[in-house]
């Protein structure tokens, strides 16, 4: 059987310099061929990172808002909870479809491996989905969606919601952030170089995206939830500032070679204009007046800014995954990571 390999490509088309020998081509690196293999990940995993992050962060927000938020907190919590629950299904679908053999997804449940973020991620998604489902049912009950007085509702009243809420916030937070660890615990230079920042960075982005999504929903629901919108917007801004700070830390730790995919080419452009510009810079600019004036932005601005944050969040994940691929393909990036240290 003859097949075309996906990884290794013939490469004479790019030769330019004259009388360049085969020996010359192996001088800088082994013919420019990758040292390590990049993962096969593309849209399924990118979308999973995005919706999974929102799912986790939104549930955490729902819990925190409920604990601390009074009436406005309640409405944030309600939106956040439903949003989170709405993301569970696409997250799981993306995660399953990303597999080479989706029908074997359940094999993930054979083992628990603490040092494998992929294994832990599955359990995190599973456990957070479990708690989230219970909490969403409870939310539905309280919203009267399950009827007023029936055996189910009566039984649900007995549920230790506070305990479940407390327990559920842990996997939710991890769901929001573990994807960074998933990338960090690999040999890909871009991901592993500043591995300690990866989790927090993805977490910040997840919070920002979840907050933006909630803001967007609240904004679209109209003026009745204005107060709640302002509060969640505050969280979004906080998350965005944190994200910016973490990005600065992340990029400062990269060498030029490792950082290259974030600076050049398609991923570089998308990083600069999509993630930093449209996803963070522009929303901050739109919110600028309210930040300086310590007031709140208008509904229209809020909606546009939130939408931009969400686009930026997706772009961030796209860039991180694809720039990671480029980083994995660059032998010099790997060599820089693994050079002899005396």
């Amino acid at each position, binding site marked *: 059987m003859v097949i075309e390999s996906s990884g290794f490509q013939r490469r004479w088309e790019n030769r330019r310099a004259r009388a360049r020998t085969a020996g010359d081509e192996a001088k800088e690196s*082994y013919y420019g061929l990758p040292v390590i293999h990049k993962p096969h990940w593309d849209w399924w995993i990118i979308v999973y990172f995005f919706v999974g992050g929102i799912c986790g962060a939104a549930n955490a927000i729902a819990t925190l808002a409920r604990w601390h938020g009074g009436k406005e907190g309640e409405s944030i919590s309600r939106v956040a909870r439903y949003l989170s629950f709405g993301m569970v299904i696409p997250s799981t679908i993306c995660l399953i479809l990303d597999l080479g053999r989706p029908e074997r997804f359940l094999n993930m449940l054979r083992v628990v491996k603490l040092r494998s973020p992929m294994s832990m991620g599955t359990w995190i998604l599973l456990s957070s989905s479990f708690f989230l489902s219970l909490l969403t049912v409870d939310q539905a009950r309280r919203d009267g969606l399950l009827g007023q007085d029936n055996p189910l509702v009566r039984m649900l009243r007995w549920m230790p919601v506070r305990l479940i809420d407390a327990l559920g916030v842990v996997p939710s937070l991890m769901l929001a952030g573990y994807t960074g660890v998933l990338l960090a615990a690999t040999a890909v230079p871009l991901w592993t170089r500043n591995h300690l920042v990866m989790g927090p960075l993805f977490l910040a982005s997840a919070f920002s995206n979840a907050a933006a999504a909630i803001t967007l929903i609240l904004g679209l629901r109209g003026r009745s939830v204005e107060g709640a919108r302002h509060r969640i917007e505050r969280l979004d801004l906080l998350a965005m500032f944190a994200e910016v700070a973490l990005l600065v830390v992340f990029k400062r730790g990269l060498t030029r070679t490792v950082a290259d995919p974030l600076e050049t080419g398609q991923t570089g452009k998308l990083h600069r204009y999509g993630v930093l510009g449209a996803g963070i810079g522009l929303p901050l600019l739109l919110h600028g007046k309210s930040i300086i004036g310590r007031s709140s932005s208008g509904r229209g601005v809020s909606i546009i800014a939130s939408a931009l944050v969400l686009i930026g969040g997706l772009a961030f994940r796209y860039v991180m995954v694809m720039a990671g691929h480029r980083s994995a393909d660059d032998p010099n990036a790997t060599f820089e990571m693994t050079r002899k240290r005396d």
Partner: protein
Amino acid sequence: MMSEPRTGAREGAMGFLTDTTLCIGCKACEVACKQWNQLPADNFGYTGNSYDNTGDLAAETWRHVSFVEQLADDSGARPTSLNAFQSNWLMMSDVCKHCVNAGCLEACPTGAIVRTEFDTVIIQQDICNGCGYCVPACPFGVPALSPIDHKAHKCTLCYDRLRGGMEPACAKACPTDSIQFGLVEDLMERASDRVENLRGRGVDGAYIYGDRETGGTHGIDGLNAFFILTAPSETYNLPAEPELPQDKTFPSYASTILAAAAFAIGAALSLRGK
């Protein structure tokens, strides 16, 4: 006095010693491997990369011989008197390293990748679900997803042959004993003697790749398939001091948990009613 062992190989571990100073680049290992393991041909592109038209280890390629031409000096002059043993046209048969602590194995979320009774690392094909996480988790670029069955594949160190008391196909086919199979302990001793011998003959650059000093560094703790090289490892596309990626898992969790706590507090504060 017993000196500290060069790797953390467990007792009874089996592995490869691939001695590049004996390699003539015949690629019999590549063919023997594909034949025994019934792996399909996967690439018909002429590369111009010296005589390496294989390029890389892949799901269907578990041995790969690399070729590096190092002949002309800056003035373009070619050598006539050569180093004892392979020189100026370097050839190396690359393979899965069967790490003492293996990144792929630790990364695998299904338990498909296991350590065998021979201390080798294999992917159980009836369990692998093709998540692909072992692929970037290997610091040497060994496992890969097959475009045919979408599962991860790599060298099994001929687990089936080992079970039958035979040596792996590549070692069997190697005409110059560049690929040697045996107990890691013995092979390491042989390799040390060989390196000493080579250095005695003026091959100053000879060294073992795959001990705690080089190749099997930072948590990997040695490679059960190791090499004798005569040039910097990067010449052969091997990282000098790779790390075990999973050593970063717990610290990264920790920083994430800290950040999560901070975010929880921050979120609670910012969500607090006025």
